[in-house]
């Protein structure tokens, strides 16, 4: 049975059914008499249930009356609109239907759960997508160039000499200037260090020696002495540790593929002609890439 459910032919059949139903609905599909609106007991119950889902309580008799009136109004408007052809060439309706079709194809893609073997193969194929970033633990002492001017570097170097000789103060950070920068970071990724201290500093501290005081490093805020306690290289975690993430990435890729395959399949049913002079696409100049440190690529 399970195997049968994974059968692509079945998926295709079901999608086909979907298309027919969609077509029928689009045409105002209703099997009743054209001028008859029957609000079935089941419909009323459905309205009540929808209400209850939202309001977390059942509707009162008065509210039910309102829901039914509203449903009737909607049904009338809906049928009249279809009869008047208001659904034709409506961008909103067209887009909504397109979105539904995409949902169908995505659901078909998500239907079959991948096996661990498939996921491990995916991981082996794209290790770069699952790398744990490098980690750095360090302490820092901040010297404000605003406050100390040229003395900032001199004084930083003096403190460095003392620290390197093991003659530094017990709390080296207190010898620096007040700041909102953290005095230390533990197991921080290069991205986090860049977010906090700026990208210049992040690049420098990545090169600083481990197990000793060094510097001064220059950041946008001033000068820093740093003590790198530990540097852990970027690693690929074991599959068990990152299975949910591998699954997420696998499914995302399947979804993209499935959408394309679905559309390509449908396209084969159509002969497509583009008439008239095709407008020259606007020259691609790229996006507003950041002049000041960053932006879109």
């Amino acid at each position: 049975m399970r195997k049968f459910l994974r059968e692509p032919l079945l998926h295709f059949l079901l999608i086909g059914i979907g298309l027919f139903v969609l077509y029928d609905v689009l045409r105002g599909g209703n099997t009743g008499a054209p001028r008859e609106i029957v609000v079935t007991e089941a419909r009323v119950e459905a309205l009540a249930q929808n209400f209850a889902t939202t309001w977390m309580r059942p509707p009162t008799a008065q509210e039910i009356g309102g829901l039914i009136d509203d449903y009737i109004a909607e049904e009338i408007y809906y049928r009249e609109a279809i009869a008047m052809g208001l659904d034709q060439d409506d961008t909103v309706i067209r887009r909504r239907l397109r979105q539904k079709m995409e949902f169908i194809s995505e659901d078909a893609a998500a239907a079959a759960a991948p096996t661990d073997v498939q996921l491990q193969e995916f991981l082996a194929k794209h290790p770069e997508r699952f790398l744990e970033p490098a980690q750095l633990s360090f302490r820092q002492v901040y010297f404000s160039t605003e406050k100390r001017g040229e003395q900032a570097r001199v004084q930083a170097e003096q403190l460095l000499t003392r620290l390197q000789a093991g003659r530094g103060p017990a709390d080296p950070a207190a010898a620096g200037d007040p700041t909102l920068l953290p005095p230390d970071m533990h197991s921080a990724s290069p991205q986090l260090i860049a977010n906090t201290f700026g990208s210049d500093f992040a690049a420098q501290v990545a090169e600083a020696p481990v197990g000793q005081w060094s510097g001064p490093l220059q950041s946008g805020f001033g000068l820093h002495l740093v003590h790198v306690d530990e540097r852990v290289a970027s690693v690929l975690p074991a599959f068990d540790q990152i299975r949910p993430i591998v699954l997420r990435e696998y499914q995302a890729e399947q979804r993209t593929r499935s959408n394309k395959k679905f559309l390509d399949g449908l396209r084969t049913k159509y002969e497509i002609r583009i008439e008239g002079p095709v407008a020259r696409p606007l020259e691609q100049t790229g996006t507003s890439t950041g002049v000041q440190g960053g932006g879109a690529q």
Partner: protein
Amino acid sequence: MSTRTFVLPLLAAAVTAALMIAATPFVFASDDVPGPPTHKIQYSPYPEKNFPNRVYFGDTHLHTSYSADAGMIGNTLGPDEAYRFAKGETVTSSSGQKARLARPLDFLVVADHAENLGLAPLLMASDPTLMATQFGKELRAFVDKGDLPGAWNHWSTTKASGKDPLAANQDVYRTAWARLTETAEKHNEPGRFTAFIGFEWTSAYERNNLHRNVIFRGGKKNADTILPFSAFDSVDAEDLWSWMAAFEQKTGDRLLAIPHNGNLSNGLMFDDVTLTSRKPLDRDYAARRARWEPLYETTQMKGDGETHPQLSPNDEFANFERWDKGQLGPAPKTPDMIPREYTREALKRGLAYEAKLGVNPWKFGLIGSSDSHTSLATTTEDNFFGKVSAVEPTADPIRFNEVIGGIGGPPEAAQYHRQASASGLAAVWARENTREALWDAMARKEVYATTGTRLVVRVFGGYDLAATDLQRSDFAEQGYRKGVPMGGDLKTAPAGKTPAFLIRAQRDADGANLDRIQVIKGWLDAAGKTHEKVYDVVWSGSRKPDAKTGKLPAVGNTVNVAEASYTNAIGAPFLECYWKDPSFDPKQRAFYYVRVLEIPTPRWTTFDAKIYGIALPKDVPASIQERAYTSPIWYTPR
């Protein structure tokens, strides 16, 4: 510049779309949702301390293709892409352009319009797991007979019978909402990135913006027990609060709601009467509003909401990214509406309400967010992807000239996309990057707004704080021990004591220097009249306030408009200050919030002009001073 005016009624189309969509959930199948990844917590400093030690930046207000006014008008990126972009991945935008954030966000709330989430029934027939059920087989029988309408009817009537034909197979019952919550769950990585579950309740009472974003503290399990409350259910926020209360009671989870764009509410956001019953605000209303709406989104794409020149004529920085022509619809603005639309005035009037009712309805903290409808949370001037996909970066005049406010109204009510603000961000002081820690910080208002940059600001207020505490390396510890952080409360001052404040601000690590720090005080006098005063408390360079006016001279401007560049030759990377209120009256209710100004930098329109070689629009400035607004600290005498 072209004088053609593009009046594509995007938002009108969106509203139409929202109205046209039926409110029945659709169904789809999916695999089990993986739990949150078991990553090692990346960063957990100062394990011996227990106070918030880091600021996290995020967007609490992002729309994806699941929102009618995004997905129906060109946005093809769903929540998955939105989270990927926020996490720093390169994403191809709906207009086909590669986009990336220079620095990833720490958290994101995908807040799609609730009105879009209840969709017409999707074609459940695509779901193979359904075929394993008795109901599925019955359905199949119709199909085999070639009776497709029959299959459809059987589906809808059986589902509507109240007896759930698929009760034993809940996997089949996933809705668009479930898809959103599932995506949030997949991208939520505690310690590394927080993906909140949320939605936008889009009340547009007579086209006036009364929208609220609702944010869940918990996860999918509780969220999936409901469908988001929509404006179809009610346009009155009081009903939203009742709904939130019912959800909390039912699930034990927590919710908060964040209103935004009072500037487009035509006087309704901070009105003196309730929305539908038109009764004067009473104590019960005030208590509920304060309970459910601890924050206000004060700056975003559709204008800055801190204050207005009409309300703050002595504040030379009040006229910032102003959107005051009307609403989203056609009704123009009149001056009488302005006092009921802006943050500072609401905070002041809140003091008066508290004196009158015993509860302050508008005791809220401040955040910024984007309200971007492109699935791309871009908030910096050099990377602005626009309000909607149709106005993503392009040399085409649509990007500047598209009407996005005052739609269908007179020309004087129109707001054009060139006036859209590349703003803002929500900054949250917390101990770790998790849903719980960030949500709790929001609930206690230990947050601030920025207009899109990541400048850092920290404030403590208290009676025992000393000037020497400012210089201490354990500054924050002293602040928490002797005072309260932003968002906090000061009770009746001990005899002879005056509130003192420790303030530190640091520029964006890769951004522009700071111009100054200001304290903005609002208070209520004995006669029940409200007042405000802006204090320059510390500034860069050796400027002296003008002897006559007391005004501090402007910091200068290094912006090269032609090159869309600036330098940090002026301003300071770090400012700090110990400040005592010089005119403190222990009997008067008051609030204090901090505004930090950066030096002028190029506006996004200036980047556009440089990159595309087009003319600068005339009605927006070439450079702006980005800023932060902290949540207030309130002084409430007993």
